[in-house]
């Protein structure tokens, strides 16, 4: 209302000034649009080229086809790599979430001697470049004559995922009001019941977030995997190796599929959270 009146009262403003005012008011929106465009360009490109009727090398646009989506395992090895990545990711998620959550509870809920040393031990893997983590584990395996492969890769992934799980779950525990646990004890819940009925349900979203993070870190990891997986091909490794001679469009299909799946999981989680809060 008031805006209309102001415009009506000043009819002689030049279009240049009007544009400048609009721009000033919407600068942040313009910026956000540009930033998100930048973030999504390669995603859009990958998605678009999943429909390319490309043959072997998916470099140039040759025409639209749905055949890649109808037959995502059409290229040799690609689905094998995907299955490996998912298997590794699931095992890593289970182990790193359990171990990391236990550590997070110890650090976040208890005062004990060696707490700051524990914090340092959690920080160190995050402060170590992946290539050093990968290389050092490989040299350990070589020293003990263990061949790189599936399980060494799982172990290597758990090492770097634990820290991220600890940090995520710890933040959630820190935001918990200690009076809620006291209230549960006051209302006849013993230590175990308090943990099961109050603490765990309240920390659960943090643990779920940490598990999702662990899976995506493991699924997308290349450097550490490359050092420790030996002959086992994971999806990122497949793409990296294929990059030299041309990546099949099926890889784009799988990457796009994973993108939409993950997006759906996160959005569903948000909706569930909002429902619960209502």
């Amino acid at each position, binding site marked *: 209302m008031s805006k209309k009146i102001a415009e009506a009262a000043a009819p002689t403003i030049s279009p240049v000034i009007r544009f400048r005012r609009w721009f000033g008011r919407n600068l942040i929106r313009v910026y956000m649009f540009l930033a998100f465009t930048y973030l999504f360009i390669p995603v859009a490109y990958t998605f678009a080229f999943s429909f390319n009727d490309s043959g072997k090398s998916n470099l140039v646009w040759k025409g639209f086809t749905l055949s890649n989506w109808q037959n995502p395992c059409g290229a040799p090895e690609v689905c094998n790599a995907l299955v490996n990545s998912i298997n590794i990711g699931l095992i890593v998620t289970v182990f790193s979430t359990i171990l990391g959550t236990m550590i997070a509870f110890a650090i976040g809920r208890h005062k004990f001697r060696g707490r700051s040393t524990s914090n340092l031990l959690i920080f160190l893997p995050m402060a170590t470049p992946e290539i050093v983590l990968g290389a050092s584990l490989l040299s350990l395996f070589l020293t003990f004559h263990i061949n790189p492969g599936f399980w060494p890769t799982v172990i290597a992934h758990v090492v770097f995922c634990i820290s991220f799980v600890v940090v995520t779950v710890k933040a959630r525990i820190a935001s918990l009001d200690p009076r809620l646990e*006291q209230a549960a004890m*006051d209302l006849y*819940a013993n230590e175990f019941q308090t943990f099961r009925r109050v603490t765990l349900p*309240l920390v659960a979203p943090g643990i779920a977030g940490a598990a999702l993070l662990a899976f995506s870190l493991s699924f997308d990891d290349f450097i550490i995997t490359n050092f420790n997986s030996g002959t086992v091909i994971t999806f990122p490794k497949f793409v990296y190796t294929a990059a030299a001679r041309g990546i099949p469009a099926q890889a784009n299909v799988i990457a796009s599929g994973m993108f939409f799946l993950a997006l759906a999981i996160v959005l569903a989680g948000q909706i569930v959270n909002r429902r619960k809060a209502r």
Partner: protein
Amino acid sequence: MSFDASSARGDLILTRITKEYGDFKAVDDLSLTIPKGSFFALLGPSGCGKTTTLRMIAGLEEPTIGSIHLGETDITTTKPYQRPINTVFQNYALFPHLTIFENIAFGLRRRGIKDVDAEVNKVLNLVELPHLAGRKPTQLSGGQQQRIALARAIVNRPALLLLDEPLGALDLKLRRQMQIELKWIQKEVGLTFVHVTHDQEEAMTMADTIAVMNEGKIEQMGSPADLYDNPETAFVANFLGQSNLIKGTITGNDGDSIIADLYGQKISLPKNRSHAVDNSMYAGIRPEKFRISLLDTPVSGNVLTGGRIEDVSYIGVSTQYQVEMPWGQELMVFEQNDDGVAPFNKGDAVNISWAPVFTFALRGDEDITAGSEVTPEDLDEE
């Protein structure tokens, strides 16, 4: 359940409780009996040890020395969930992931009570919020959350209900309303309520008995009227309402009265209101007990002459005066605006008078500023 509800009922008895955190004594050799069925208030400024005392009764802290009994049962070291005691937490601590119904049912379910639905509905009706059973705590207003926190505790019919600054988060008007409601609910359910607060008005409105705490000890305990009319220490005199404390000397007796000399002027006061241990004393008079009169007006009772009005503030129901006395002290006087007499003016030469029965006497070695610097509105917790 691990406690036997029938035997663990009765008076709450704290015996020589001390709680130390390192070198700091939060509670210092405190003994206290809270009679069954009473509405008891622990009143004091931040850091006086009242919340620590409450947490020890709840079982959230263990005393360093001393014991806590509920009736015949020693509960000093039992776990919070083994005590027939429930707490209404400051800021309520409602479980955000559970509905209102499940919040209230929480204690019943843990105790294995059969008819959860009926109990919960009954208590929801008591607090007049049965329509909110399916909501989540974040969807409730502050006043509603407060009532649910209360319902969640009393549904368990504890031997003792602890209230930790229960009204601190509410605005003034709602607080007044809840004070009356709490008092009514206490009568209705007949439980022992122990109420911790820094708000003297709240304590006086609701409690039968108030214990005023300071630096880990109980300064004085009694009914609200007792504490107000006959404070034993300067801390109580200043923390509960305001007091004029005038230095003096006891010069003699007259039957049930004591005669004292205040800067050369004689006054009398009842013997049973004197807490002086020797001749030196402070005479204490509440500001609303004073009457102001012009020099030529005849007055009776105790009189102090030679005053001069320094400041006048009109606040509706009353007018507040600052009167400077010949010895340099400024006395505070509240006059009701109910006699149709025009207020006095700044600079008027006046006498001050009051009935001897409204005088109390404190020891002469008291720190007369004790309890007056703490702001009652201070919301900080210890």
